[in-house]
């Protein structure tokens, strides 16, 4: 019988928390990329961090603070987008979230440790509350995407047909925004801002380039993310490294050969001549 290393047995809760997020975030990333909203992932993540730190400074639970700020911004997104010049909302929110987080962490002594954890991604401290949050996010997110994935695609690819069909545009759009904001806020508290962003950005980026269709992309992106996550989890644990950067590095290292394969595939395709 194979014995698991004692560290792995000790950290089953963080391990499972991260694995569930590693399945959910790339799926959200596919739709964010489709909607050309991957800046939103950074903004929601950074705002989640700012909300968590703000809540801690006020003596409130940090998970509730992160979720509340992320959800508030996602709820107001449509109105804010209408009032601001185009393409500026999410970069602006990211910058504001980043500055508020760092200022809170620098000036409030009790907040400093959590601040460092949010940026480094201290997955190994995730407890039962984070495990339950991640499980809830995966179940709700999975069900939502299973039920509305077709509508999200239709709204992006055939928007006028989508509206003409009198489909529930507001419900689909707002539901996805809230789901993305809540999931990112949760993920940041265990994987760190850039670790969470790497899961949202890199696997969908490769899946968009390499998958033969949408269904294949829905399988490939979480599979790649889960593989990189397992690798990073073991490496960070064995070598006592912060988890967020290790995960980002593992994803980047796996993405590089994929990106090169894309490049060669593109050249081979253009060598055959385009369909036009």
């Amino acid at each position, binding site marked *: 019988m194979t014995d698991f290393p004692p560290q792995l047995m000790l950290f089953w809760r963080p391990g499972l928390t991260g694995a569930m997020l590693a399945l959910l975030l790339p799926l959200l990333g596919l739709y964010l990329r489709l909607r050309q909203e991957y800046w939103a992932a950074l903004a929601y993540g950074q705002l989640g961090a700012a909300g968590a730190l703000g809540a801690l400074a006020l003596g409130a639970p940090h998970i509730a603070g992160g979720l509340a700020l992320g959800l508030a911004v996602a709820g107001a997104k449509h109105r804010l987008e209408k009032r601001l010049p185009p393409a500026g909302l999410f970069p602006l929110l990211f910058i504001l979230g980043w500055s508020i987080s760092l200022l809170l962490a620098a000036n409030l002594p009790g907040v400093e440790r959590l601040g460092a954890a949010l940026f480094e991604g201290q997955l190994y401290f995730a407890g039962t509350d984070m495990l339950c949050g991640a499980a809830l996010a995966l179940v709700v997110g999975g069900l939502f995407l299973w039920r509305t994935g*077709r509508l999200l695609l239709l709204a992006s690819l055939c928007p006028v047909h989508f509206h003409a069909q009198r489909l529930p545009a507001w419900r689909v759009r707002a539901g996805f925004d809230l789901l993305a904001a809540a999931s990112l806020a949760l993920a940041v508290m265990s994987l760190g801002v850039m670790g969470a962003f790497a899961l949202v950005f890199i696997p969908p980026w490769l899946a968009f380039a390499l998958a033969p269709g949408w269904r294949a992309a829905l399988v490939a992106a979480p599979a790649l993310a889960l593989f990189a996550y397992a690798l990073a989890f073991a490496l960070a644990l064995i070598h006592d490294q912060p988890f967020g950067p290790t995960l980002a590095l593992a994803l980047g290292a796996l993405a590089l050969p994929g990106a090169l394969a894309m490049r060669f595939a593109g050249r081979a395709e253009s060598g055959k001549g385009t369909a036009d």
Partner: protein
Amino acid sequence: MNLLQAVRLSAGWRRPAHRPVSFTLARGEILALAGPNGAGKSTLLAALAGSGARVFSGSIHLAPALRIGFQAQHLPPLASVPLSGVELLALTGARPQGLPEPLAACLHRRLDRLSGGQRQYLFLWSILQAPADLLLLDEPGNHLDKAMLAGLPSVLRARAGQGAGIVLVSHDAELARTCCDRLLRMESCDD
């Protein structure tokens, strides 16, 4: 029974884009909207679909529980979206049966790896064969090669034969002449 009735209708975005028009459309009919650029043809389609254009005067009456299919003039940006032709048709609920053979053979390829004409035809097909009673088509012949364009009137007539009403905008006078039952000439408010 009329699917659609427009009475002295003038639509636009910030101000009326065309002079008032009145028309009806029954099941099985194809109506072409003609006129120069800026005559408000696409705006009128958007108003009929309830897709944002404002009705400044007159009224639109739609049959109850009418299902509308709307093909936009411009394709969405598809660069690097991993979506195959089969998946596109499944999105709108369109049937692949009857698709011209060269395109049927491309159905499992990614749309961004097809030619502009092939992509346009698949998008048109995905709307044309979607479950809908009223079809609004904005320049359906855009980017199609001669062979695809030549086959388009019979495809449109077949769809009308199944009971759909079609309103189409086309700069191609030959397409409008060969497949449309009526032609409505539109004029800009500035004329």
